[in-house]
């Protein structure tokens, strides 16, 4: 396994759309192992997308299991993920390994349903909410060339978040 260098904005590859994975082979699994090691080596990181290391394929890893008192599915390898439905809106603070030294507020769906393939190409389906749903939406944005910077909302004048 190897640590992969993480691209940082303004690297133009972060603004590109990634392609679907079509071959689920040993090379893919080896890349995913490297991607996961890269995520684990980042302090506080809860997700990573393949384009963040320069591989323009629709692969993300999310693992929010280190956060106390939240619902989650543990370690998730999501290949060709598709969000099928969104519900509710919640504001939360986000940062990104690809945008060092900056954080900002972003509005995300509170709960989503998601289809994806696992590392072996088997179809999977998930219902998720809260912090895990936010992490998945953040990572899926990377697959479409979107950073949280593209979704920032004002810090001022949003004192009391509206009830859902």
């Amino acid at each position, binding site marked *: 396994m190897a640590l992969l260098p993480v691209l940082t904005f303004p690297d133009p590859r972060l603004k590109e759309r990634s392609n679907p994975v079509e071959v689920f082979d040993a090379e893919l699994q080896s890349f995913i192992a490297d991607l996961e090691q890269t995520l684990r080596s980042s302090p506080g990181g809860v997700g990573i997308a393949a384009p963040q290391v320069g591989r323009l394929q629709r692969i993300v890893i999310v693992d929010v299991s280190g956060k106390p008192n939240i619902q989650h599915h543990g370690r998730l390898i999501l290949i060709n993920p598709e969000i099928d439905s969104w519900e509710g809106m919640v504001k939360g603070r986000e*940062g990104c390994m690809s945008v060092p030294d900056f954080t900002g507020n972003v509005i995300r769906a509170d709960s989503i349903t998601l289809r994806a393939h696992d590392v072996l190409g088997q179809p999977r389906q998930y219902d998720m909410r809260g912090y895990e749903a936010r992490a998945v939406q953040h990572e899926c944005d990377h697959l479409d060339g979107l950073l949280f910077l593209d979704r920032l909302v004002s810090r001022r004048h949003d004192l009391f978040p509206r009830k859902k």
Partner: protein
Amino acid sequence: MHWYMLTLIGKDRPRIVAQITAALFEGGCNLGEASMLRLGGNFAVMLMVKFAGSKATLTHLITAVAESMELHLHIDSIDAKLHQHMLPDVSISVYGADRAGIVAKVTGVLAEAGLHILDLESDVAGTETSPIYVMHIEGKAQQGIPNLESALDSIRQQGIEVRLTPIDTLVG
């Protein structure tokens, strides 16, 4: 290169930011972080400026445009620490009927309970006869968030609405 903090304050009008930053750019300055906003009909600029010359040269560079827009200018030589943002872990929103001492009371108990304020914004809203005070603070809870939460109880008992929200920054 030296870093300076420019403070410019005057009656609000259009084109202040464009004219000031054009003069700085033409004078060879680079800009750092800034906060600029309208406060009660005044416009306030706080702007980090990187400049090779002295404070006197920088003052000379900007004085004509500042005077033409009736802005009061102040310049401090500073130690600039870029790329080292402190991450806030808590936000506190406060609102209530405007009365003397809200800010002192709230920030006093928060300071006592370990809050390091990183950002504070406030507005006087409502009407002249019935003003309300709205304040938003972000900071770092150096003695933990439960400490801040219990400290705010005394504020709530005085009829001031306070909401404390932990900020859990998602890094993806």
